[in-house]
């Protein structure tokens, strides 16, 4: 596979505040890459560096082997679908899509042909003469995509393009974007904070936090083998428990010794143990490896989401069995349900379901001095 974009040791600060801290990333031709992270993690800045709207303080942006740090956006073979679309309100749909072609001074007939073709690709044929302000969010989205694709860029940058759409439309657009990416063969770099979106669309997911890349991998890798508590918590739901690696394939946590599949840790090394809520089996109390009391049951449609207090630590378990609040249950873990991670600076910050969001934790614990 051919490298199309290389980010080399890039750092960027705004007003003395570090936004990107020495990140390096290779993006390959014809790849669907998603930059995933919470707001303020530097994902949009990374995208803007590639688009040419920001310049790195340190490091290099390399495009097809050529350093393009100082190349202005209009000279880059990269186009962007902006957050909230940024369509030109003084132009109609046709003129918006034709905008880059007019800039290249193509003959009228050729422009018409290309625009018509592009509008049919995004299923907006017949909307050419509409005013963009009269379109729905989904239609505006399509215009923005058509406009960004019409020059056939090598790379398309998408900055949270689906954020403003409702759930069903978002799902449709995810499918459609993926289809467009496959059929055009253009490299897509997609920015989102929605982990489900990242999982369902991407070939490669880049998880970012606090200006650093935490993990790069396929959606399966990232989900099944998160490198630290941040990734495990951000991608899907996870119970993250303090543990000790007794020896290869033996881990002790919550006062019990479990068989697992992980190797390569020091003897008695302190580790973070990740257990996905859907991997926990509920068994009668006397047959469980661990026992606890159900503190809440939420019906989610496909399954129940139950919170179980096991020795003071709140676990989340997803189950299709009905369980009553205050019931005593046992849990059983298969070896492959357990994933071991090295301790990181994120250890202890995530993975306890006393509350779902950090924000609530902070609210109920103002000042935060009590912790640690």
């Amino acid at each position: 596979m051919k490298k199309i974009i290389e980010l080399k040791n890039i750092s960027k600060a705004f007003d003395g505040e570090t936004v990107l801290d020495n990140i390096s990333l290779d993006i390959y031709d014809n790849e669907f890459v998603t930059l995933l992270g919470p707001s303020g993690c530097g994902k949009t800045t990374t995208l803007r560096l590639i688009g040419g709207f920001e310049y790195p303080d340190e490091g290099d942006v390399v495009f097809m082997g050529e350093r393009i740090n100082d190349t202005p956006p209009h000279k880059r073979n990269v186009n962007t679908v902006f957050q909230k679309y940024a369509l030109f309100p003084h132009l109609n749909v046709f003129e918006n899509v034709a905008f880059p072609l007019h800039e290249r001074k193509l003959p009228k007939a050729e422009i018409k042909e290309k625009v018509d073709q592009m509008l049919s690709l995004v299923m907006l044929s017949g909307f050419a003469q509409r005013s963009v302000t009269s379109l729905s969010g989904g239609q505006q989205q399509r215009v923005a995509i058509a406009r960004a694709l019409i020059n056939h860029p090598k790379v398309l940058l998408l900055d949270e393009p689906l954020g403003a759409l409702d759930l069903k439309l978002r799902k449709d657009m995810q499918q459609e974007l993926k289809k467009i990416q496959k059929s055009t063969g253009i490299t897509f770099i997609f920015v989102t904070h929605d982990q489900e979106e990242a999982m369902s669309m991407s070939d490669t997911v880049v998880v970012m936090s606090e200006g650093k890349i935490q993990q790069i991998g396929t959606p399966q890798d990232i989900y099944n083998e998160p490198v630290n508590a941040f990734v495990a918590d951000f991608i899907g739901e996870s119970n993250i428990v303090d543990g000790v690696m007794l020896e290869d394939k033996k881990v002790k946590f919550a006062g019990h010794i479990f068989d697992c599949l992980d190797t390569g840790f020091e003897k008695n090394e302190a580790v973070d143990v990740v257990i996905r809520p859907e991997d926990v089996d509920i068994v009668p109390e006397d047959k469980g490896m661990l026992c606890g009391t159900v503190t809440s049951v939420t019906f989610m449609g496909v399954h129940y989401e139950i919170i179980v207090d096991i020795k003071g630590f709140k676990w989340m378990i997803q189950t299709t069995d009905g369980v009553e609040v205050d019931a005593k249950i046992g849990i059983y873990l298969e070896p492959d349900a357990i994933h071991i991670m090295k301790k990181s600076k994120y250890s202890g910050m995530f993975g306890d379901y006393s509350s779902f969001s950090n924000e609530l934790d902070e609210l109920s614990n103002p000042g935060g001095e009590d912790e640690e």
Partner: protein
Amino acid sequence: MRKKHSGRLAITQYSVWSFLFVVVPLIFIAYYAFTDNNFSFTTENITRFFTATSNLTEDDGTVREVRTYILIFMRSLKLAAISTAISLLLGYPIAYIMARASEKAQKTMMTLVMIPMWMNFLIRTYAWMTILQDTGIINGIIGKLGIGPLHMIGTETAVVIGMVYDYFPYMILPLYSIMAKMDTRLFEAARDLGCNSFGVLRRVIFPLSLPGVISGVTMVLIPSISTFYISQKLGNGKFFLIGDAIEGQYVANNLHFAAAIAFILMVILLVCMALVKYFTAKHVYGGE
């Protein structure tokens, strides 16, 4: 309920106010324009505007018969158009810089634009007389440098300078307010789609700023076309403008003809504005 009620009251007050001070005076102007001294109907005042002639001595001494008021009107239009064009060319970049500056800088610049408006219009014009006179400040300075003297007072240039200075804020304000509202992501989108800086200006900023341009042009052109004081003071009375004509007729107690000139001027301006609006409607977006 109460809120609704007070809203209706405000509208009523506004209607009464605008009826008394806008509609009634307009009716009076029209009434005077179409009546003679005995207040019987006539179109003579109107016809006089278009047909009155006088003899104009050219620079080379030849004498030419001209239609007095048409000539005066065209002269007013020319000076007003030049002033408006200069205001626009100066004001556009300044408004853009203001709109993109930091919030604090925007406030400072706005205050600087507004301060001259707090001073009396006559005093400002007098100030320009002392600046532009043959013995004025400018000639004092360039005289020390061994240049000049530059004869400025009593020229068309002086009148234009006065008009630009007096009406400049009316150009800046609408331009600034529309530019400050512009979504800068649109500029990024244009650059992304292949525009250099000039392309962004030509294809995005300018078309989006058109409503501001139109109101700025209107707000400078109309007072400049009908001004009389500036041309009297800075033009030494040599450039008789349509405003001077109205004032002259009024002072001479010729109220009906004064009203007729004002009426015709108003009609011409309204027609012009309607045309401008019609031809730019396509480009002016109504969004947000």
